[in-house]
């Protein structure tokens, strides 16, 4: 899951070999698509959902995404974040983590962030959040392998731990 136009469909196509339309505007994907990918020889189902800004859907496409998440409790979530807009991306990622889903974060558009002189310490972010954080550039395929390799060992984390790691809420 992730915001509109962060590259979710690009990931999906890369991971499953499917042909979902990719464009540079928010709202290209308005329905979910299911596909299959292989993780260490095992077939795993992957779902591409429309982008959403939060877990409070504001339109029908976002509704599709949020309903999909809530209907299937035993899923792992790839939270795709536009690395150049990391703060708002973390907002959605935290919402998902708070609801108890196991999450891996893809800091996508790493190249764009780099161009904008935004530097993110992914390792430190991973330490604070307690979930895997992988810098990626989905369009060119960078980081995808690492993302897949880390999918299998993700666990739900407690928000309290994140708060403690970040040094409290004050």
């Amino acid at each position, binding site marked *: 899951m992730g*915001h509109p136009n962060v590259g979710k469909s690009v990931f999906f196509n890369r991971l499953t070999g499917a042909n979902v339309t990719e464009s540079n505007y928010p709202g290209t994907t308005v329905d979910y698509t299911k596909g299959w990918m292989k993780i260490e020889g095992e077939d795993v189902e992957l779902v591409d959902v429309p982008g959403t*800004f939060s877990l409070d859907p504001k339109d029908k496409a976002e509704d599709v995404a949020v309903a999909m998440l809530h209907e299937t409790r035993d899923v792992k979530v790839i939270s795709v974040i*536009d690395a*150049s807009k990391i703060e*708002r991306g973390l907002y959605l990622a935290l919402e998902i983590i708070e609801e108890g889903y196991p999450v891996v974060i893809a800091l996508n558009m790493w190249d764009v962030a780099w161009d*904008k002189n935004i530097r993110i310490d992914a390792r430190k972010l991973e330490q604070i959040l307690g979930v895997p954080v992988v810098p990626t550039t989905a369009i060119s395929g960078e980081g995808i392998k690492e993302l897949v390799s880390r999918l299998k060992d993700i666990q739900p984390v407690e928000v309290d731990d994140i708060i403690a790691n970040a040094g409290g809420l004050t």
Partner: protein
Amino acid sequence: MNYDETGTVTDIDGDLRKRVAGMGIRVGKRLRMITKQPIKGPVVVIVDEAETSLGLELAERITVGVD
């Protein structure tokens, strides 16, 4: 707030707070307005180097302290 000005968000009206939260707009955030369309058109603001466009009625419910 006017065209090409920079400021800090001081207040967001009621339920709008939640709606714009996902777009990274929140109290204490700095933003710059890059355009204002004529005849009550939408405004475009930059927050954290990301462009967001808001309808004028929404924009009016966000209070910004201009530098």
